[in-house]
């Protein structure tokens, strides 16, 4: 059974709604099949689009002849990148950093000049049915000049490696925008290294000299996909007045609008994006792929166009996260104090710059207080899918390396791995390797909860079994967010927010409003607004929604509360200062006869001055970082190399859990994605760079049969930066699992796994290598 221990760190405020487990507001639609996801939209006269994708990992597109496809009955339009305005991509043109270099974004949507990975979109058609559209793809004649591909970062960094972008220069300083292209006049050649940067603190030489034990290891991880079950789909209607409506599922309707406007080169005010339910994102639905294509095809045909991806297209045409090559060196004294560390991280960005190397580097040693350290990072382009964000982008691979080395140090020093971490724990005031000091974080509290947990203290018996532990750190994000709320005559509140709801955030946001107003969670009806009906709200990402949009909801509720108190004072002809709202009842501070329930007052609004609408637009600071500690028990079959997870416990500082069930769900889901990353998942490529496992059969994500129950422990160290103490919870649970399982495999077999995934083949190879090593030794 899942054990939920809430440890009281400070005296807890008493909440009526926050911390309870109501049934989510959008639940009924989702269990009955009524909820509308991106592919569920069907419009009168709608055409179906399909995208033609490059069969080559690296090729010059010499020509595209669409005439045969256009001649097929039922085909209404064909497009290529020649139909899109081409941004120059010069540094001066860059908008929002690497991820938003408009040229790269546009060229990833439809290849221009070169196809840079197998699966890169090259052309698109609109036809009367999906089947006709598919037939038409086979009639588009593309002449390619095939170039040698470069398929991993080490090869890409070699002298003489095939160059993906002739004008790409290495931004060897974090203060130059990464992903910049040289001016045409610049004679320098291109590089596959898009950026390189370093953080350094203290005195490394002195630090390593003080160490009694030094561990040095190299690690390799592979690209893994976010694996959302809903394939991408976008439907667009370009009206004759130049305004376009786009229906799609994404993590940010405003991001989809802004990126589409950039690619189509039209004012963003001409685009309305209607967010449909999103069938999983995990970071992978933050970039446009199909939206501008559907929009252009609609413009060309005058009809609504829906473009949907197949599962193969999702694997081959959308972002996985980076593969990596990492080196870590760390020293510690006999009494378990880390004295110095260095690390070098090379992340594969895929075809365009923008791997999560920066957060990887910054999170790597986040949980620890290390006085002397140096970390360098490289962002390297290769001929594979352009990577996209994936849950705590960059942090999981880095933590796998760091936490494996920490485990080895603890083992060599014969110190309990939790005690070792406690001796080096980062806490409020600890200076991070990247410079700033920590505000209040709950690493120590979470380690203590792990130390006291029955799982950690249970005996683990039987051959080939082992227990591992690892910690993980994630910054958490924030951003602009908007909410409006209207009080209905029946005493309910209609809340419109701007954050697409991936995993139950409507409930968490609505509950924060209900808490302020003293009404039941069920009396707030939340919905996610389109770009024309709610203020700008930044993307659902960075574990930000319960924090930032929860905050907007809290502020909008305060606005309603203030207006209702004014109204009560007006009705009673008293001063507003004498009116209070307590547990959903407005009452006069000194006259007990004067009281209105929230519902009673709501019913009087229209006749006492008109409706009341609350609003808030915020950009809150003070996110409060997240810490997770995971414990894994595994059994390794020495005959097959298969690792079975026997027991798993995930502990996390959650600040304040608004809806504990969905906090547990985030933790369980993140842990299981991490278990998949640890044990099975990887992109396989053949020598020509073709992905060879682009189906759910061959890209093996965990099934119900592969897992035990995932126990969770919610440690609540309230975030002082939020009215209810909320911290983001969604991302950090994917950070510790790979190291926790690697450390458990080490305990079970004596072998330290330094490559992901730790698939049966990889484990067997390591066991045999170890055996040979022992025999040789």
């Amino acid at each position, binding site marked *: 059974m899942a054990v939920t221990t809430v440890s009281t760190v400070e005296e807890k405020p008493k909440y009526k709604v926050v911390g309870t487990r109501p049934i989510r507001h959008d639940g009924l639609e989702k269990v009955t099949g009524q909820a509308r996801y991106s592919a569920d939209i069907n419009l009168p006269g709608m055409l179906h689009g399909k995208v033609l994708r490059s069969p080559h990992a690296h090729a010059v597109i010499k020509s595209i002849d669409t005439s045969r496809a256009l001649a097929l009955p039922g085909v209404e339009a064909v497009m290529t990148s020649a139909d899109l305005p081409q941004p120059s991509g010069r540094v001066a043109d860059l908008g*929002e950093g690497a991820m938003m270099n408009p040229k790269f974004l546009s060229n990833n949507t439809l290849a221009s000049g070169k196809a840079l990975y197998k699966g890169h979109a090259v052309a698109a058609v609109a036809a009367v049915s999906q089947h006709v559209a598919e037939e038409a793809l086979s009639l588009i004649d593309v002449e390619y000049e095939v170039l040698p591909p470069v398929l991993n970062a080490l090869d890409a960094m070699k002298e003489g490696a095939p160059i993906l972008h002739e004008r790409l220069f290495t931004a060897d300083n974090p203060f130059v925008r990464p992903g910049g292209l040289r001016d045409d006049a610049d004679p320098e050649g291109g590089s596959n290294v898009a950026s390189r940067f370093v953080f350094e603190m203290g005195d490394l030489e002195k630090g390593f000299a003080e160490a009694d034990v030094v561990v040095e290891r190299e690690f390799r991880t592979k690209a893994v996909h976010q694996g959302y079950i809903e394939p991408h789909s976008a439907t667009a209607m370009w009206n004759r007045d130049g305004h376009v409506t786009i229906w799609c599922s994404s993590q940010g309707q405003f991001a989809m609008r802004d990126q589409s406007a950039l690619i189509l080169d039209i004012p963003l005010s001409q685009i309305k994006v209607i967010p449909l339910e999103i069938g999983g994102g995990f970071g992978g639905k933050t970039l446009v792929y199909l939206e501008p294509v559907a929009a252009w095809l609609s413009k060309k045909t005058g009809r609504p166009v829906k473009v949907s991806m197949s599962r193969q297209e999702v694997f081959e045409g959308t972002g996985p996260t980076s593969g990596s090559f990492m080196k870590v060196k760390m020293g510690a004294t006999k009494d378990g104090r880390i004295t110095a560390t260095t690390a070098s991280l090379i992340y594969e960005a895929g075809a365009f710059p923008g791997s999560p190397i920066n*957060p990887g580097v910054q999170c790597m040693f986040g949980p620890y207080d290390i006085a002397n350290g140096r970390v360098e990072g490289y962002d390297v382009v290769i001929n594979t899918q352009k990577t996209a964000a994936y849950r705590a982008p960059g942090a999981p691979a880095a933590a796998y390396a760091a936490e494996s080395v920490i485990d080895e140090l603890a083992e060599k020093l014969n110190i309990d791995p939790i005690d070792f971490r406690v001796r080096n724990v980062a806490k409020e005031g600890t200076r991070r390797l990247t410079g700033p000091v920590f505000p209040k974080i709950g690493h120590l509290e979470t380690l203590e909860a792990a130390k006291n947990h029955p799982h950690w203290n249970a005996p683990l018996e039987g051959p080939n079994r082992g227990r591992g532990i690892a910690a993980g750190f994630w*910054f958490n994000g924030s951003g602009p967010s908007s909410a409006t709320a209207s009080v209905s005559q029946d005493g309910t509140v209609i809340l419109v927010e701007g954050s697409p709801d991936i995993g139950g955030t409507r409930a968490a946001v609505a509950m924060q409003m209900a808490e302020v107003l003293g009404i039941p969670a069920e009396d707030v009806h939340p919905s996610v607004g389109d770009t024309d009906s709610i203020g700008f709200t930044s993307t659902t990402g*960075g*574990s930000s929604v319960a924090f930032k949009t929860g905050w907007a909801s809290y502020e909008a509720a305060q606005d309603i509360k203030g207006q209702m108190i004014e109204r009560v004072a007006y009705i009673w002809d008293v001063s507003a200062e004498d009116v209070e709202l307590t547990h959903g009842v407005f009452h006069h501070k000194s006259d007990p006869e004067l009281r209105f329930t929230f519902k009673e007052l709501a019913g009087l609004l229209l006749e006492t001055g008109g409706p009341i609408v609350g609003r808030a637009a915020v950009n809150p600071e003070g996110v409060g970082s997240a810490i997770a500690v995971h414990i894994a028990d595994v059994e390794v079959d020495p005959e097959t190399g298969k690792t079975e997870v026997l027991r798993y416990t995930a502990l996390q500082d959650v600040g304040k859990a608004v809806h504990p069930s969905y906090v547990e769900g985030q933790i369980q889901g993140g842990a299981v994605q991490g278990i998949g990353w640890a044990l099975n998942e990887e992109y396989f490529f053949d020598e020509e760079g073709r992905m060879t496992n682009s189906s759910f059969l061959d890209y093996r994500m965990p099934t119900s049969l592969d897992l035990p129950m995932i126990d969770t422990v919610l440690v609540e160290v309230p975030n002082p930066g939020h009215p209810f103490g909320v911290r983001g919870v969604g991302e950090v649970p994917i950070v510790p699992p790979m190291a926790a399982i690697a450390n458990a495999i080490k305990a079970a077999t004596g072998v330290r796994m330094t490559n992901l995934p730790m698939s049966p083949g990889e484990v067997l190879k390591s066991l045999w290598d170890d055996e040979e090593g022992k025999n040789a030794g």
Partner: protein
Amino acid sequence: MPRVFIPTMLQPLTEGVQEVEFEAANVRQVVQGLEERFPGIGQWLVEDGRIKPNLAVAIDGETTSMGLLAKVGPDSEVHFIPAIAGGGE
């Protein structure tokens, strides 16, 4: 006085100086103060009158969303670090 930290990769511009203290009430004044002490450093931090979009400013450990307008207290620590993009749940 606020303490302003020079990022590792800009320390060549400061001849190895890692940290400076001077009067400043907001990030704009911090950048101006740095530019006075280390001419040329400002262009690495500010572009088109704004903090570069791939940079974040952390004041007392918390990233600010206010850019050059962010207030700096008399005992504040100011850091310039690469911005982090999140991935969502």
